[in-house]
């Protein structure tokens, strides 16, 4: 039995301890927005937040997240400015990588509200987009970054401000 917070809700999983968090989220709790791409922590499609930091859930045994705060794309509740920017910039093509892209980018902005272009590139290069929507991903992040502080506040409406600052 492993207990953790999933998008603010306390849940318990009886999955085997070595089961990657990804499958627990997707198949036990039915949150399908988090995707399976490579299974070896090299594409980022499965990115979720663990206590505010981006992690690759495909390679994270569920036992590791006991008592942790896990947030998935569904946990942004369509409220994150990045999600609006993603529509504004018409970022997604097939869309499969985009939950992971948004979770990665939102973690960046939570700790660095106004990243430079180089910082964005460095932070986002672990996330593969096979459709190659990179220039739009970058533009959408830059767009939100220039709106600066509002990001940090809107990022996580349900939890206290401290956590929304990330784990820097």
């Amino acid at each position, binding site marked *: 039995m492993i207990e953790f917070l999933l998008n603010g809700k306390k849940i318990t999983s009886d999955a085997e301890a070595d*089961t990657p968090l990804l499958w627990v989220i997707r198949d036990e709790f039915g949150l399908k927005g988090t995707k399976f791409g490579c299974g*070896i922590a090299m*594409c980022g499609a499965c990115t979720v937040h663990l206590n505010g930091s981006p992690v690759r859930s495909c390679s994270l045994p569920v036992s590791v997240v006991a008592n942790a705060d896990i947030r998935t794309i569904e946990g942004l509740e369509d409220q994150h400015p990045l999600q609006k920017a993603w529509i504004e910039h*018409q970022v997604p093509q097939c869309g499969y990588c985009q939950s992971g892209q948004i979770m990665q980018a939102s973690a960046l902005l939570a700790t660095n509200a106004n990243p430079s272009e180089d910082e964005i590139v460095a932070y986002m290069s*672990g996330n593969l987009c096979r459709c190659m929507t*990179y220039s739009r991903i970058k533009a959408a992040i830059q767009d939100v970054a220039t709106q600066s502080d509002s990001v940090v506040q809107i990022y996580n409406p349900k939890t206290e401000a401290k956590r929304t600052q990330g784990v820097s």
Partner: protein
Amino acid sequence: MTKFSKDTFEKSRRSFLIGSIGGGLMMAFAPSINALEVASGGAVKQLTDKLFSPTVWFEIDTNGMILVNIARAEMGQHVGTAIARIVADELGADWQNVEIKHVDTDPKWGYMVTGGSWSVFQTYVPMSQAGAAGRTALIEAGAKLLGVNPQDCKTENSMVVAGNKSVSFADVVKNGKIDRVFSADELAKFQPKNPESRQLIAKPSKALDIPAKTNGSAKYGIDVELENMVYARPIIPPTRHGCVVRSVDDSAAKKVKGYQGYKILKDPSDTVQGWVSVLADSYYGAVKAGNALQVDYDLGETANVSEQDIIAVGETLAKDKTSGTLVVDEGNVAKAAESAKTSLESIYRTSSVLHFALEPVNAAVEIIDGVCHVHCGNQWQSLFLPVVAKAMGMAEDKIIIHQYYLGGGFGRRLMGDYMIPAALTAQAIGKPVKLVFTREDDSRFDSVRSPSVQQMNAYWDADEKLLGIEHGAAAGWPTLAVAPGFMPEGVDKKGKYDPFSISGANHWYTLENHRVRAINNPLAQKTFVPGFLRAVGPGWTGWAVESFMDEIAHKQNVDPIDFRLSLLDASGKNAGASPVSVGGAKRLAKVLAEIREKADWGRTLPKNQGLGIAISAGQERDMPTWGACVAHVEVDPETGAVKVHKLTGLLDCGTVVHPDGALSQTEGSMLWGMSLALFEGTAFEKGQVKDNNLNTYTPLRMNNLPILDINFVQNTEFPTGLGEPGLIAVAPAIANAIFNAVGARVRDLPIRPKAILAAMPT
């Protein structure tokens, strides 16, 4: 089966039905002219009885919402949006009221294939006409309600308007009784709106599928859950063909919690040979059990084939001028070769490439009341539905393929082979099954882009006049593998060839003597199932043609753009034909002339930097998108590393139906071109690809993103496709830029730093 041709839909003569049904208004194509004659009732009866066979049909409900049903795969090209806009524009609809839905296969929906950048091309005319017919019916009914003459009415913003009177589509649908059949002839009389009166086409718009792709709610094949389903993972045998399972030892797998055993699959369709599927009550359980399972095989005959073996066969064939089938035979190349004073020979090779769609292939299958329901994202349902039927020993009308979003297509999901193991497993255990390939499984089962070898020869006379070019291209052929009936005959009647694998070699340059041989590489064909990979043949023919044109230009000491322009005279067969390729090579010349300005061609660059040009007319001669690319690169002369500073792209695809979608597709396809040029490529080793995950297979990421400057020629010509053409010119443009930067001519794709160093002039 319907002939596999992009013209199928356009040329089919169907009538169009419009009728009030259950409170709404429904509009659809009749199945065929014959079926219409058989049907006794009018549109309402036929629609009620579901006697329609549309690729697309639409409904307007009493709130005025317009639902466009689309039988095409959505894999990132926002195809629904483009098609819905064509319809909505003609209807005079308010875009806010338009929704799209992707439908299931049912044999009666007609031929379902999404590939070759054809969707907009194929549907433009019929969808415009269908929209215009809908408008006519709405106006007729609306005029009655308004008490005016239909001639005095028009539609706009989902209203029928006559002077200062108007009635909304919603009210027309609520109050009008519509029962209307437009014959194929009546339909054909509708001309697409003239460009000035368009409200939606070619105007900025947001794609309808995007919001769901920003919040995790878009549903892909991998997200399907069926009640009581068992999770499965396939064990991929060591060779694609010919493996037989000798024995299975699952003693270690039994220790995995939730393990539910395995099945050795028997496949009458021979799609999967020597396969085992592993079952568990969770996917991770199936993965672990799969890793623990020991399977002993009788191996297929290709168990030791290497990339080099395949290339060597290709080289021998390309060299042998009697091999293959002639696809182009202009003038007399043999005579040109004999009389030549000088000549040039170059061999170009491309290595195997993975699709690596980010969503690994998967399918969920359940059999309910004797009907097999397959759930997955797929591009070519009509090809694999009969294969599923054969594998299952069931009738084709007992198979339904349910469509979902595709986590990347790129041609991988033209093959529906991954449905087969899922269906067989479900049949074998008598329970619903969701079978998901791990990334490694997906790569090992990929229908890769075949390695290719091309030999190019050019001949000059004593006055240094270019006499002609000879081109032999050897590769594995996807169409031969999955749809050999679709292969046309060569011009020498020596055999059939795969048009998709040679397209691009029959280019738009005017040459007095020109010969192209399409050659199948039998070892490639045997070792794997050659795949359709974004742009297919032009991905390698463009590499050879455009690199070689550059070599010729340099040999002749002519500017590469001037040289190309001199051959783009639009004479003879290169004049083009109305409406699709109207203008012919002239449009290509125009693109080339414009990009020369845009990219500031000919300027002086710092040391080790260069610009390179290449053009393309993909996807095919009868559906050309005219394109050019200029690459700006910098080469590190010590390491051979290439940095692409900028890619400038210019495309003429006629009317741009969905401009932002077109730009987005082209950004993607040009970066694909760059990724294939510099970052991808794998090799066969012991009968399988050696790279199967991102630890060694390394597509382009954000840190290698160049500046992209992409433009479209603004005109109102017939719209052609965009999903693939942007890719074609990029690799040769980069190679030509590398030559201009450091003088190294590279002829192998991908371009590796080592190859550049080896080719550097000393």
